[in-house]
């Protein structure tokens, strides 16, 4: 440039390209070259005043520019032509169905700018009634998991879909020709269309068979019902129609069959409506303290082996067939039998056992109590968990004999969770063709010859039939992120069918489901309605409830000796399917509050007798080392360990967290047992700290959770809550109570129906871009969740009462945090919301100290884009899950629950556009919307019609630490226990 100026006529001359991004690099190169010539001219040539001034001017500008651009600018490129249905900045919602092989839930997915970011329950569902579980909420993050398979693989090497299809089809054809056996091994498939595809596949390959293997199967129930009623099915359970629920180790609020549906049913009969003093009574017999047991009115810790004998005595006491050598009747069982007999037809006895014998006893008890057709119904069979354990046991034997030629594995991971994993591995090695259709890497697909990765459910077409008359549709929200293909489509291709999965599904619905209704004349209308609603329900088909036809003898119960091991599914991990999801890994267990790993729970008395302390490492049966966690309510002489941890081959997040205890499961004749007797353990002399979000569990007599019994409540609805009236009466202040002219947002928590399931925590995390901080940080008490569920124990540590209390920001009208902030970064708004201005916060943390509820969280590190926190926040793909309506907080600022102010704003704007006054109840913060129990209610406290206002006026309502006169906007309704009367 020093040689003379180049004049240009149009700005485009400087930019060789147009408005396209790739040309920016070229422009930048040119600019660089210009700078260099400028420098050259002034350094080598005669230094004219002009070039000096140029250089000086340039460096001033450069310095200014560099100083003012502290952050790189990422360009968002707008649509040149706006698609008709997309308005940037507005979200769209699509109905679809979540099914992961175990749990079914109808959901509505919120999509922003083409990417799904939030899962909500589908309120139209008769099953979940708009509720979700933590795992359903977290499933959206699975879509953006960078550890998923990116392409098909052959022996671990990348391969194209075309050649994978060719090779597999050829091999399958070869096997068919020589009459070899092909096995399609999957977890339960509840999709009618997928089942039809499987049928097509089986008819295309006559030597093929389909085997269903459920990790946590309902083997016992299925076989017992076959024996008792002649149908191999799971009945529909109606916890909402029961007045007395007796559960034997069935964790129906956690993982048993359909927990979201059951929580919704259970909560509906736990709620005390005005002038309604009926409430369900729940008795739980179990080994470890489960979320279900923690909600029971009466809970008996038992050893796994005692279950059968107690059930036999119960059966005898109710008047059933006498079994020999039954245990002497204990007072508890006698009393329970009495209670059960009194609520004939209104009780429900369930068992979580996998042993058909035990389920047979349960069937007889329910039959004697007249519960069939009332609280449980085989006329409407449930199609979840159809697997029979014997099938997989046989398959493994045959694989080892070398009689299986091809194994196609869908959505199951036997190498990880088959109890005798090494047998499965050797069998797999003996199988000539092994194909995994898994969505994400797992221990099994790592050993398969071919991996033909499937789609995430948000990328898939499909349907579901969780119960006989209930159908759900599944539609994709996004094109496959990676080069993956639905497993159903892969099967279609290998049979030589080139139909697309969407067309197949549509045709299937047209020919099979469309005729089952009369409302819609044209299929198109029917299809669109079903797709929009996500749900299709029909009349029940079949011949009503079958009759009991069971005359078999019940075998004598053998007493077991020694320490017993009890394996359970935790609420977060279940069978470990979603282990690579950091949100779930960091979801505190509802009972132990531990995160990121599993541990051996022992009872306090057992620990004392054996000299065990928290975090002592013990080796169980000399094979598996685990840290001890002392758990109140654990049965004496038992050890409980969660399944689902110790994944080794699935992804960065899960690998190596915790220990896989599936090898400790037992293979009894005909079923896989999740308990084991005669267990030994030895102390290893080491300590291993388990991170927990809550360490202290006693209320110290403080009025934090207020509770009463149903009997007391009937006499005086205010019982247990006398303190509230006293404080209201005696409270003295110099200041007027703050008044709000427009809205006054408030939330009400029903402690009676909250089960502590944790769906709200994940919903909040998903909605509000809350970072995952990892185990070490959690152990330092730096978990970032904006809503936490406090769990307290009361009474005898061997048989404690448990309470769950969700705690979020109370949005105090006289907030202690607000007046201590030196820079006014946390002010109160005119709708009663306590806000945080992240840009203003300098991080003195004084507000954290002065918050009596300790709901404020500090960004101790830069959590986003920090390799030290290598979770979803650190990958470009993982960050796609972020909600654009909520700021990602930087290091050094305080954050906390905002009552989802972005949602309030959204509804306000909507109402304004509609030219109407917003009804506060329309706004639903993420936690409220996700709650399957509807225990959280949000609304406008100035609107007397809103449920929240009615709740806060209830006699049961109190405020947490109300004696401090913080005037919280979150009210709690007392917990009521239905003790035996």
């Amino acid at each position, binding site marked *: 440039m020093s040689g003379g100026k180049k004049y240009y006529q149009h700005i485009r001359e400087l930019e060789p390209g147009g408005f396209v991004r790739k040309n920016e690099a070229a422009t930048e190169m040119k600019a660089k070259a210009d700078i260099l010539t400028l420098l050259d001219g002034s350094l080598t040539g005669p230094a004219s005043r002009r070039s000096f001034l140029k250089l000086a001017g340039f460096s001033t500008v450069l310095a200014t520019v560099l100083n003012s651009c502290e952050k790189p600018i990422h360009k968002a490129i707008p649509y040149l032509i706006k698609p008709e249905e997309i308005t940037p900045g507005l979200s769209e919602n699509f109905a679809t169905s979540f099914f992961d092989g175990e749990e079914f839930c109808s959901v509505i997915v919120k999509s922003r700018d083409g990417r799904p970011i939030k899962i909500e329950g589908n309120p139209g569902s008769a099953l979940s009634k708009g509720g979700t579980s933590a795992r359903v909420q977290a499933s959206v993050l699975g879509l953006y998991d960078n550890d998923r398979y990116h392409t098909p693989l052959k022996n671990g090497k990348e391969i194209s879909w075309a050649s994978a299809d060719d090779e597999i089809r050829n091999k399958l054809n070869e096997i068919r020709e020589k009459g070899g056996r092909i096995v399609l091994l999957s977890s339960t498939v509840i999709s009618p269309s997928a089942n039809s595809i499987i049928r097509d596949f089986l008819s295309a390959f006559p030597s093929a068979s389909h085997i269903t293997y459920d990790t946590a199967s309902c083997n016992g129930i299925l076989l017992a019902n076959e024996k008792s009623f002649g149908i191999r099915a799971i009945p529909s359970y109606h916890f909402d129609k029961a007045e007395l629920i007796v559960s034997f180790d069935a964790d129906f609020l956690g993982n048993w069959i359909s927990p979201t549906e059951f929580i919704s049913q259970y909560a509906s009969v736990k709620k005390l409506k005005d002038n309604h003093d009926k409430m369900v009574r729940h008795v739980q017999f179990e080994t470890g303290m489960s979320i279900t047991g923690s909600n029971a009115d009466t809970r008996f810790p038992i050893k796994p082996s005692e279950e059968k004998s107690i059930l036999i005595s119960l059966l005898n006491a109710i008047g059933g067939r006498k079994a020999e050598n039954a245990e002497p009747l204990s007072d508890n069982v006698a009393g329970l039998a009495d209670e059960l007999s009194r609520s004939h037809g209104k009780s429900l006895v369930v068992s979580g056992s996998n042993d058909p014998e035990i389920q047979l006893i349960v069937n007889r008890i329910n039959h004697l109590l007249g519960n069939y057709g009332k609280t449980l119904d085989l006329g409407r069979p449930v199609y979840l968990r159809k697997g029979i354990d014997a099938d997989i046991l046989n398959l493994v034997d045959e694989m080892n004999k070398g009689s299986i030629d091809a194994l196609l594995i869908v959505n199951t991971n036997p190498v990880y969770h088959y109890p005798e994993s090494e047998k499965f591995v050797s069998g797999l090695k003996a199988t000539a063709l092994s194909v995994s259709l898994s969505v994400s890497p797992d221990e099994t697909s790592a050993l398969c010859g071919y991996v033909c990765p499937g789609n995430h459910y948000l990328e898939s077409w499909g349907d579901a039939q969780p119960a006989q008359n209930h159908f759900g549709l599944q539609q994709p929200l996004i094109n496959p992120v990676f080069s993956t293909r639905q497993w159903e489509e892969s099967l279609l291709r290998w049979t030589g069918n080139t139909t697309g999965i969407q067309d197949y599904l549509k045709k299937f619905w047209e020919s099979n489901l469309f005729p089952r209704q009369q409302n819609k004349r044209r299929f198109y209308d029917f299809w669109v309605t079903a797709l929009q609603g996500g749900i299709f329900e029909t009349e029940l088909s079949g011949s009503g409830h079958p009759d009991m036809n069971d005359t078999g003898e019940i075998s004598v119960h053998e007493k077991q000796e020694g320490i017993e091991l009890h394996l359970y599914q935790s609420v977060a991990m279940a069978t470990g399917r979603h282990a690579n999801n950091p949100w779930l890994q960091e979801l505190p267990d509802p009972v132990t509050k531990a995160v990121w790993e599993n541990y051996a729970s022992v009872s306090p008395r057992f620990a004392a007798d054996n000299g065990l302390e928290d975090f002592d490492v013990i080796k169980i049966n000399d094979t598996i080392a685990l840290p001890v966690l002392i758990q109140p309510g654990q049965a004496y002489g038992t050890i409980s360990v969660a399944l689902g941890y110790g994944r080794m081959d699935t992804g960065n997040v899960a690998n190596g967290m915790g220990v896989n205890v599936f090898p400790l499961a037992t293979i009894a004749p005909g079923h896989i047992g999740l308990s084991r007797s005669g267990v030994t353990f030895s102390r290893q002399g080491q300590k291993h700290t388990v991170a927990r979000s809550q360490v202290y569990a006693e209320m110290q007599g403080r009025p934090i959770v207020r509770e009463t019994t149903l009997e007391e409540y009937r006499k005086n609805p205010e019982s247990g809550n006398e303190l509230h009236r006293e404080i209201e009466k005696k409270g003295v202040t110099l200041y007027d109570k703050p008044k709000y002219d427009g809205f006054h947002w408030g939330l009400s928590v029903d402690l009676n129906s909250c089960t502590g399931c944790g769906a709200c925590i994940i919903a909040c995390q998903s909605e509000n871009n809350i970072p995952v901080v990892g185990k070490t940080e959690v152990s330092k008490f730096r978990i970032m969740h904006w809503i936490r569920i406090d769990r307290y124990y009361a009474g005898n540590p061997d048989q404690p009462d448990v309470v769950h209390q969700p705690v979020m920001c109370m949005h105090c009208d006289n907030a202690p945090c607000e007046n201590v902030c030196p820079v006014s970064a946390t002010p109160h708004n005119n709708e009663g919301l306590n806000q945080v201005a992240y840009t203003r916060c300098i*991080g003195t943390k004084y507000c954290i100290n002065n918050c009596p509820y*300790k709901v404020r969280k500090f960004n101790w590190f830069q959590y986003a884009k920090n390799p030290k926190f290598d979770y979803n926040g650190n990958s470009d793909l993982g960050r796609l899950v972020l909600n654009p309506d909520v700021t990602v907080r930087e290091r050094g600022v305080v954050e906390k629950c905002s009552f989802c102010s972005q949602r309030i704003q959204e509804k306000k704007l909507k109402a304004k556009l509609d030219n109407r006054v917003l009804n506060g109840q329309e706004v639903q913060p993420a936690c409220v919307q996700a709650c399957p129990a509807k225990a959280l209610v949000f609304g406008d406290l100035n609107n007397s019609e809103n449920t929240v206002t009615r709740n806060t006026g209830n006699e049961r309502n109190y405020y*947490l630490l109300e004696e401090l006169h913080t005037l919280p906007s979150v009210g709690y309704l007392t917990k009521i226990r239905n003790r035996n009367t």
Partner: protein
Amino acid sequence: MSYATEIRGPLVLGNKKLSQVSEDIISPIDSRPGKWWFIAMFVASLMLVYGAYALYITLTVGIGTWNVNNSVAWGWDIINFVWWIGIGHAGTAFSIFLLLLRQTWRTSINRAAEAMTVAAVICAALFPLIHMGRPWLFFYIAPYPNTRGPLWVNYNSPLFWDFMAISAYLLISASFWYLGMIPDFATIRDKTSSRIKKMVYGILSFGWTGSSREWIRYESVGFVLGGIAAVLVVSVHSIVSTDFASSVIPGWHTTLFPPYFVVGAIFSGFAMVMTLMILIRKIYKFQDYVTYGHLDAIARILVFVSLIMGTAYLTEIFLAWYSGNEYEGFLLFRSRITGPYAYEFWAMFICNALIPQLFWSKRIRNNLTLAFIISLFINVGMWYERFNIIVTSLSRTYLPSVWVSYHPTYIEVGLYLGTMGLFSTFVLLFFRFVPMIAIHEVKSVLKHNEREHGMGELKNGDQ
């Protein structure tokens, strides 16, 4: 020659002439320091380097490198802040209260005490700055006109009061200390033979000539500054205490705190003065200036303040029981007196309320080794007092679900050691380059005695 006051006896021993006083006090500045000085400086620098490393990590990675958490959000940072600011009280309290009360015995001690104050306040001021999540935005706390509305600070927040109080205090104590040194810098300038020193001290002394007019103005400025500073001595720590007293946290929410904090600050400050004066006396052989009488007076003050501290502790315990507040009762009786923090509580109680009672004995007061050890104990005790207030209260708040225990990381320890290194470096440089005893003030005591009692007279005899 020996000069004696009526009550306290001779303030300066050794029959000093005026010129001898200047020579004695300036000699450490003029001579090469001993080996010990370099060793001490090396150790101090090591601590400083560790502190600088900790500071670097804190600033670049974040305060996540500390162990403070979402329940105990303040830890060693604020403990050390309050501890240092407490120590920083004595100098000013010493000079100003005694100046205003015309206690002439302060003259040999006030300079060192003031220097210590400035060093301690600088150490203290570091912590509120770096304990912030985003220290680069610290200026938000200053009420400056801006274009955001304008957006003002929160005048209700004790932290804002704190910021104002500390910056005012630092400004006033540094000015007061510097003002006191001007005539002495002039003395050095006049006495030294080194040209560089002449120039440096010439600038530092602002061209002081020692004329009567200068002396008159000098003394009136001293009194005015003293008057302002006297208020600040009381207000600074009262305001620091409102950081805690105005909160709702049990163990913090106490009306006792303002006087309790001020007295505690004076307590730790005087203990530190004693530590330092015993060192100066020993190392520089200033026993003629820092006499047993001085140390005896400090010890008497300490024993009195220690009684106040004990009373405050007992009042807090009594009120926790008497008020019937279950949260406070739990904190005092089941976390502090017994319970997880019993060790820290009893360390505080014994060091602050019991050990100083030994000073009732004149033999212990005059045993410099014991006095030195006791003064260290007091400072340890005062550190534990702040630990008790901050950590025990925060780790046992209202909801047991958020209870958590807290231990520092090596970064937090590093910052503490770093400030100790900074303090020591500052003190060592002070020893080396500044007259440790206010020459002109000591001389004024000499003159005063001369006129009242005549030269060479012995009234109260030797000590």
